């Protein structure tokens, strides 16, 4: 494991050179085939052609291992398989299947390569491809980083094609014709004479054959697609419109009990002592359990979740102090002390021209920016059902990290990894929350107090928000120089906590060294050419533990980089959109900016008395995205009138859902730019329910127009890239309408919204 650790440490966080050093060993390990998990437990006459397709005489099952948090990933994964398999995706059973190493995510780490996404050279591609190696070694079956579609685009179509050709081979043998004479449609093989053989009837025969070998080049060209790229109904849309989708929180099992917990609101702090006497005799209460795993606290097992919630409230706990500062002001002081300090220097991945000389030769324009901690706060609070059997553990939950959960549960219960069965259920949102697992750890320990009985732990909303690992707070200082009506020097320092290393440490116990790219992702990698251009990341000391939040580093950096650029453009006296276009050095990005100008009818930021528009741009997860927002200052406050989103996704595979993801990301970005922050008082967040953490509501939502471009060659994920440009577009619009420059989120601290 020593060498693996080294490769992973380097390649996660640093990049190409080290990745190159690790290749020989890494590819060797990673090239060993991983067993197909569907082969265990196949019934007589059932065929599993690869880890993604299973066919029996009863029907067709598609395995869609990337979690569905609401972004439509089950649907697109099913569509990718069905396109080549020639079935109607709505006719198949769709399930995430049992988690297994075969489902590792080969794309999610490619963002960690220190080459901006707009550089598509051979070296860059090679470096990105090698990021799949540590992912495979660590069994990273993970959903995140807008990686589902890029990772699965070829894998799943190949899976469908292999299954189709193998079924045809079975039919060919049965009919005594050659495979090439056969065609397929809608789940049947059609013979030259018109005779039809259903896939389900061929399964038993096909199961005896070696799967037909197919290559990427054998896949159908986009021009022949029937499902991909066409408006199609999401496979889960009927269930989600009739209350029949079973989320983790809805699961009901025979004899199940319901648990609630109050854990130390200071994350990582101990439970010193507690008095549960008031809870003991309460109606419905069956057991009181002290919990050490996850975050320490006391749980109640009862016959109804509400009885459990009520009883935990009656428990008096004495909490230990966690090892981070108690109040927000101290957190900001830590960031202020770290930024621009040599001791906290983390990385400088962009340094062009001579910034020092330029800054010394003029009076630079300077500004400071802040972005707060944020909770993920998906609508479905964290929950898990756990049943401890004699020699097995079953866990039913919505998660992005099933294999990490398996390993941790096994460790807590003292069983083998193989004894743990994780059943992944649909999720009521995540936004990154389900990349953590403290609730699962707690649920396992609670269920261990009632062996044999399935126990469902549900976090109350308050518990959920106070035990979320938030988006890190971030501080930025910018210095710039303009000359001849142009932006000449752009120099920003960004300081926040490291995110990737501590997260990996929590999940795997491994220590990852090296710089943390998330500190400046969304700033250092933007496709602009500025004569003197520098982006430096400073790493704050570890404060409250933080985690990935929709769009990760770009959620803060998108705001910092683009708003500061807007300021400099204003200083230079140039048009915000025209100057961005002039500075842009990447074709697809420039086209995105031009398209948003066209879509919004851009003719300058000024729209007359009390009105204005702003443009925001960020390239994240390989997707250039530009947004224009129009606002009006009214007596009731600032009103958002219209928003325009343009993104280049390479290839639009699921246009209906794609549009939803793009405006959903914009709305999520606006929600937090306007209305939301977590502040810490006495080690705990002061905002623990939606009244204090509003998000965006319908009345504040502008009219939105979305346009998708497909100039970039590669397929990209779209769950995140429309979020980062939202805050700068709005802030820049507010400046245009009112002259007020807001450099800190949330904006409602500085201006009233209608």
């Amino acid at each position: 494991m020593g060498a693996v650790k080294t490769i992973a440490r380097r390649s996660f966080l640093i990049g190409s050179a080290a990745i190159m050093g690790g290749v020989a060993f890494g590819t060797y390990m990673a090239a060993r085939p991983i067993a197909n998990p569907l082969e265990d437990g196949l019934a007589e006459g059932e065929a599993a052609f690869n880890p993604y397709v299973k066919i029996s005489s009863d029907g067709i099952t598609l395995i869609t291992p990337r979690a569905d948090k609401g972004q439509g990933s089950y649907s697109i994964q099913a569509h990718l398989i069905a396109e080549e398999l020639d079935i109607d995706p709505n006719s198949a059973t769709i399930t995430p299947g049992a988690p297994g190493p075969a489902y590792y995510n080969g794309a999610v780490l490619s963002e960690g390569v220190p080459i901006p996404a707009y550089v598509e050279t051979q070296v860059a591609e090679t470096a990105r491809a090698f990021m799949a190696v540590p992912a495979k070694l660590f069994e990273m079956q993970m959903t995140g980083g807008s990686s589902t579609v890029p990772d699965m685009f070829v894998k799943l179509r190949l899976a469908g094609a292999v299954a189709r050709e193998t079924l045809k081979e079975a039919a060919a043998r049965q009919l005594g014709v050659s495979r090439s004479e056969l065609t397929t449609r809608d789940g049947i093989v059609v013979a030259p004479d018109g005779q039809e053989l259903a896939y389900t009837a061929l399964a038993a025969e096909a199961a005896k054959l070696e799967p037909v070998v197919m290559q990427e080049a054998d896949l159908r060209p986009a021009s022949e697609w029937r499902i991909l790229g066409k408006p199609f109904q999401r496979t889960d849309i009927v269930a989600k419109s009739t209350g029949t989708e079973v989320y983790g929180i809805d699961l009901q099992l025979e004899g199940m009990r319901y648990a609630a917990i109050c854990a130390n609101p200071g994350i990582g702090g101990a439970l010193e002592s507690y008095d549960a006497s008031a809870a003991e005799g309460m109606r419905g209460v069956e057991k009181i359990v002290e919990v050490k795993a996850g975050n320490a606290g006391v749980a109640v097992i009862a016959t109804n979740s509400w009885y459990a919630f009520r009883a935990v409230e009656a428990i008096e706990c004495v909490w230990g102090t966690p090892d981070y500062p108690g109040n927000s002001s101290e957190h900001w002081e830590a960031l202020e002390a770290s930024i621009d300090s040599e001791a906290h220097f983390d990385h400088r991945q962009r340094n062009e021209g001579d910034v020092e000389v330029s800054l010394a030769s003029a009076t630079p324009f300077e500004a400071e920016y802040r972005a707060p901690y944020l909770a993920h706060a998906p609508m479905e609070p964290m929950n898990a059902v756990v049943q401890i059997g004699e020699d097995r553990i079953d866990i039913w939950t919505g998660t992005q990290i099933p294999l990490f959960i398996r390993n941790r549960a096994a460790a807590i219960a003292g069983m083998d990894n193989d004894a743990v069965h994780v059943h992944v259920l649909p999720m009521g949102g995540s936004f990154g929350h389900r990349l953590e697992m403290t609730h699962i750890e707690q649920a396992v320990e609670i269920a261990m107090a009632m062996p044999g009985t399935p126990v469902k732990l549900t976090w109350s909303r308050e518990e959920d928000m106070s035990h979320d690992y938030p988006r890190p707070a971030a501080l930025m200082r910018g210095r710039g120089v303009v000359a001849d009506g142009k932006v000449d020097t752009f120099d920003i320092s960004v300081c926040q906590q490291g995110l990737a290393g501590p997260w990996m440490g929590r999940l795997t116990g491994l220590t990852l060294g090296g710089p943390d790219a998330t500190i400046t992702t969304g700033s250092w990698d933007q496709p602009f050419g500025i004569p003197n251009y520098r982006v430096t990341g400073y790493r704050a000391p570890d404060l409250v533990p933080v985690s990935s939040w929709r769009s990760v580093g770009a959620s803060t950096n998108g705001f910092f980089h683009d708003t500061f650029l807007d300021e400099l453009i204003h200083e230079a006296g140039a048009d915000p959109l025209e100057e961005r276009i002039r500075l842009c050095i990447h074709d697809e990005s420039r086209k995105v900016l031009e398209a948003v100008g066209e879509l919004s009818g851009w003719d300058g930021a000024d729209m007359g008395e009390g009105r204005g528009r702003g443009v925001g741009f960020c390239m994240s997860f390989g997707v250039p995205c530009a947004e224009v927002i129009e606002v009006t200052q009214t007596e009731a406050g600032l009103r958002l009138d219209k928003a325009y989103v343009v993104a280049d996704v390479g290839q639009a595979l699921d246009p209906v859902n794609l549009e939803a993801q793009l405006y959903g990301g914009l709305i999520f970005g606006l929600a937090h730019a306007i209305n939301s922050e977590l502040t810490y008082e006495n080690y705990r967040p002061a905002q623990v329910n939606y009244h204090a953490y509003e998000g965006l509501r319908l009345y504040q939502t502008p009219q939105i127009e979305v346009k998708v471009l497909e100039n970039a060659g590669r397929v990209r994920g779209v769950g995140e890239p429309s979020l980062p440009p939202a805050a700068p577009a709005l802030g820049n619009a507010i400046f245009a309408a009112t002259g007020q420059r807001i450099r800190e989120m949330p904006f409602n601290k500085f201006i009233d919204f209608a």
Partner: protein
Amino acid sequence: MKLRVNGQDMQLDVDPEMPLLWALRDELGVTGPKYGCGIAQCGACTVHVDGLAVRSCQMNVGSMEDGADVTTIEGLGQPGALHAVQEAWIEHQVAQCGYCQSGQIMQAANLLDLNDDPDDATIDAVMSANLCRCGTYPRIRAAIKTAAQKLREA
């Protein structure tokens, strides 16, 4: 006590302070109504009681009339027999994670019961008490218009 849930009489033996939401979900196994906040801020728990949209997390069963008529999303319409609002929700593919949508649909259905031609301002005002973290609002607006038309034509 007795409740009539989706047309069926149901017996409940629970603490009278228990919110209707938890009686439905954990006692009766009716899980369409969701728990989101427990404090009337999100609307995910919305059901109809005697024909009016209420936040079931706020209504203690002890405060309800014996035999009160409760309709949840499951009773509004089923996959084979959809209510006009559900049809519109499917046509517009509103749901993302879908967790808030039981509440959104129940709130919208009640709005259209009371006003079958709501203007934009009314839609915004009534639906703003239902939170959607995924940001499905543009299609909620559009689906309500479609549903209103369906209901007017029905």
